[in-house]
């Protein structure tokens, strides 16, 4: 099976000497294409750091992140940004929608940043899948948390990335909405053939994943 994402002895340390914090220690992760992998850990377990490194937002102390066999940290900064917007999608806990533009504009923004024209039919399909068609002209701060997260998902999906990284996507939502958002996420990822890596502290949500990795004190293990 194709390994879309792989890490080799990925480490991230903060501070030094006695104050050294080992946020991620020798993580060796293999993620297959099309998989839905949940990384579960308590807060402070280093899971966010791990995800940020996987997505190229943060640089590791040592080790490599290989996306489709390429070490992403060998790219120059702007090349990495281009890579990110074409191959990687992000969904954040706090949605992080751009407040000054409406839902549709938020969704097509990454495509626009890439200098491409949004495939309106495709985006509309996503919008329908996520049930946002009536909210397209709303500004983000008029939407409920669940709706905002749907917009964030739509935004992540719209640029057809290979991998989606979701950082506590349901952290700000109640449990029923969380379940639904995860279901949506999973459904969309399947529908558009993408790989999803999600970090969460909520084991209930992790059940839905194909595979669960547990991170504790910076060490990553597979839950079987």
């Amino acid at each position, binding site marked *: 099976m194709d390994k879309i994402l792989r890490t080799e002895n990925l480490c991230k340390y903060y501070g030094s000497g006695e104050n050294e914090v080992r946020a991620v220690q020798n993580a060796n992760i293999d993620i297959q294409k099309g998989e839905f992998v949940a990384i579960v850990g308590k807060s402070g377990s280093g899971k966010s750091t791990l995800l*940020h490194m996987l*997505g190229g*937002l*943060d*640089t590791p102390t040592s080790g490599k992140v290989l996306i489709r066999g390429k070490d992403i940290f060998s790219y120059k*900064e*702007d090349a990495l*940004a*281009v*890579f*990110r*917007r*074409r191959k*990687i999608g*992000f969904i*954040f806990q*706090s949605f*992080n929608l*751009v*407040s*000054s*533009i*409406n839902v*549709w*504009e938020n969704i*097509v*923004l*990454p*495509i*626009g*940043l*890439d*200098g491409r*024209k*949004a495939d*309106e039919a495709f985006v509309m399909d996503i919008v329908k899948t996520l049930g946002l068609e009536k909210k*397209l*002209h*709303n*500004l983000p*701060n*008029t939407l409920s948390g669940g709706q905002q997260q749907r917009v964030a998902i739509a*935004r992540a999906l719209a*640029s057809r990335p290979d991998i989606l990284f979701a950082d506590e996507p349901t952290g700000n939502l109640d449990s029923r909405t969380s379940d639904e958002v995860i279901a949506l996420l999973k459904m969309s990822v399947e529908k558009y053939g993408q790989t999803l890596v999600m970090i969460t502290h909520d084991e209930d949500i992790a059940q839905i994943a194909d595979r669960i990795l547990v991170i504790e004190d910076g060490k990553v293990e597979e839950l079987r």
Partner: protein
Amino acid sequence: MKMITKLALSNNKKNKTRSILIMLSIFLTTVLLSAIATFGYGQIKFQSANAEEFYGSYYGSYAGVTEDQIGEMEKRSEFDRIGRAATIGTIENARSISMVWMDNETRDLANLDRQLQEGAFPEQENEIAGQKAMFERIGYPDVKVGDKVNIRFRRNTHETYQEKEFLVSGIMSQTVKEQENQSYTAYVSKACYESLYAPEERAYTIYFSLSDSVDVNSSTLEMTIKDLAEECGINPEYAFDNMYYSMWVLDPGMEMIVGCIVVALIVVFFAVMVIYNIFQVGLIQKIQEYGKIKALGATKKQMKKLVFREGMLLTIISIPAGLIVGTTVSIGFMNSWLSQSTTLGNQDVVQVNMVSIPLLLLCAAASAIAVWAALKRPMKVISRISPVEAIRFQGSQKKNKGLRRGRKQMGVRQLTQANMSMNRKRTITTIISMGLSCVLFVVAANFTGNVSTRYDARKQVPYGQFQIDLTYSKADTAYPENNLDAILKANPLDEELVEQIRKIDAVTDIKIRYMMYAYDQNGNLQSIGVLNKEQFDDEEYQGSLKGEVDYETAAKNGDILYGWSYFIEESGYDLGDTVTMTMGDAGGEARFQGTMTGAFGSSNYDWIITDEAYDQLGLSGKSIGTIWVDCRPQDCTDVQNQLEDLLTDKQHYEFSTYQGALETSESSLGMFETLAYGFLLLVGLIAFMNMANTIIISIITRKRELGVMQALGMTNSQMNSMLRNEGVLFTAGSILVSLLVGMPAGYALFCYGREHGYFGLDVYHIPVIEIAAMIIILTALQISLSFILSRNIKKESIVERIRYQE
């Protein structure tokens, strides 16, 4: 209490950008204020110090006062110091040389001792003092103290000349005014006066100063001393006030003070606006933090105090620094101005201490008050928030429906537009406040940029290269020979002179204007200009006309026009009234009757008639009022020398050159420009602080959003271009505002100025260079700002920025 100060200090340290911006604004404000204050104060002090120096410290003088009247004066409390002087007679010469005696008090009041180069004032009966040039005139070219000179003089025009041998006791320096007029004074002793005049013949000119208890200012002085004269039995007609002294010393430059206060108010207004803006925007960001402090139990008062101290702590360094810099700058500026200033041309300018500690303290207080005023609202806002509200506070609440039409496709450009339209209010406020400060600039640029020194010089010397004018008085009762009627009867500028000038080789053209004198119905002497069509039209072009001013009609109907539209009431006539007066010149006198149809803006004459109206008077000979001589520029020095030779023996004229007028107007314009632009630069800087703040805040508050966008794949260059576009929009907006408002305002000001005959305003043209410079500077500042900011923001990793939560 101490806790709050500490908290305020740490808050300031935390918001480094904000603190620096506010400190800079306060600093600049203080610089401006203290510079203005020092400049104004120095000017006034300098003027008053030098007024005494140049014009003497007497309040006024009475002529023809007898011993008894002096005794009366000495009895009165109003008079402080009384000095006597008397005219002994005139020395025989082509030039007017008067012989006078002054006592010590008078010499002191008139500040005459300053002019003494060597020796002493005369004490003995046969001693005399005077300028070197004066002795030269009467045939003693190289006179020294102790030399004997023979002088022919007479007491008055009814007597014959007598000769007397004098001993030169002192040599005086020449004042500029004397040099110009080529009139001289010889000083003799009291003994000399008394030997020549019997006690009953004696009449003195009294110079006096009033005691401090008399409440006078420049406008009441004349009346006061006339009243006093009457009290003492002195004819009030012979009372004269020392106008310059009263203007500078009694009334210390009201105009200057008002001007300074207006400018200072503008500065304070700007400062309040900018500091308020910076604080307000910063607060909204920090409102949660303040909420926490409040939740911990701070009272309303303490919250207010906290904000207040945050502001005031920032003034601690910036105000003193601003005071020092502002004072230094303006002292340096004044000194360079004085050293440049050729109009004074005097080595004896009194150096004054231009620094006034109370004034500077006032400036500091004004800056502090500006900060306080700017803090007032934020203080209120902060003290009013409830902790829960504050912690929940999510930036600015939008009142709109939360809908946006938006676009189908998004790019960096659309994003910028969306940002702008979203924060429309803030964007517009910033653009307008930026724009307004640019408006000031544009308006001033419209004004200064259009000042034409040539035009201004041409106002002084309308034709040719040289101008020879008659100088005359109209009400000199002491020396009636200086009055216009007397002068015109023996006009120094006669046809012969014109012929002589015409004979000078290099002279290419000569223009002449005739003039007359006239007595109105009250017997007052008036000057009349006789203008031909060309001169009439040129005068008309200067503007500020009243009534019908047209050469053809005036010539046909024999109308008369008033020379000063501003003071037309003083003529005693209304437009359309018939004016009757006796006019005269070298050719005799005749009655004139004509309708006053209009008035010129500011001509050199009281009244103006056309040459055709003059012809109708049927007098035998015209009197020349002004001669203009033209030559090629390269021949100027040559012609000037020859002209001066021709004029050596003449009196009652003024000789001016076009080049000289040009230089004067250039030097004063340069001054004006430096001042105006310097001021505008500082105002511009403060305004730029405002813009910088808006941009910085807009970036800081969107730090997270920017981080998210980068996570979504925005490259650095895209981010840069987005920030740059925003800035460019700000800049373009402000420039647009400034042009839209500033150009019409500037044009209006220009028209107003032209209408009122201000300094060298002639043809309007758009001040392209100034505006281009403004645009370039703004853009450059803007670009470097967004560059620095985006560099700054890149220091933090994307992850940090995404997590960034206030």
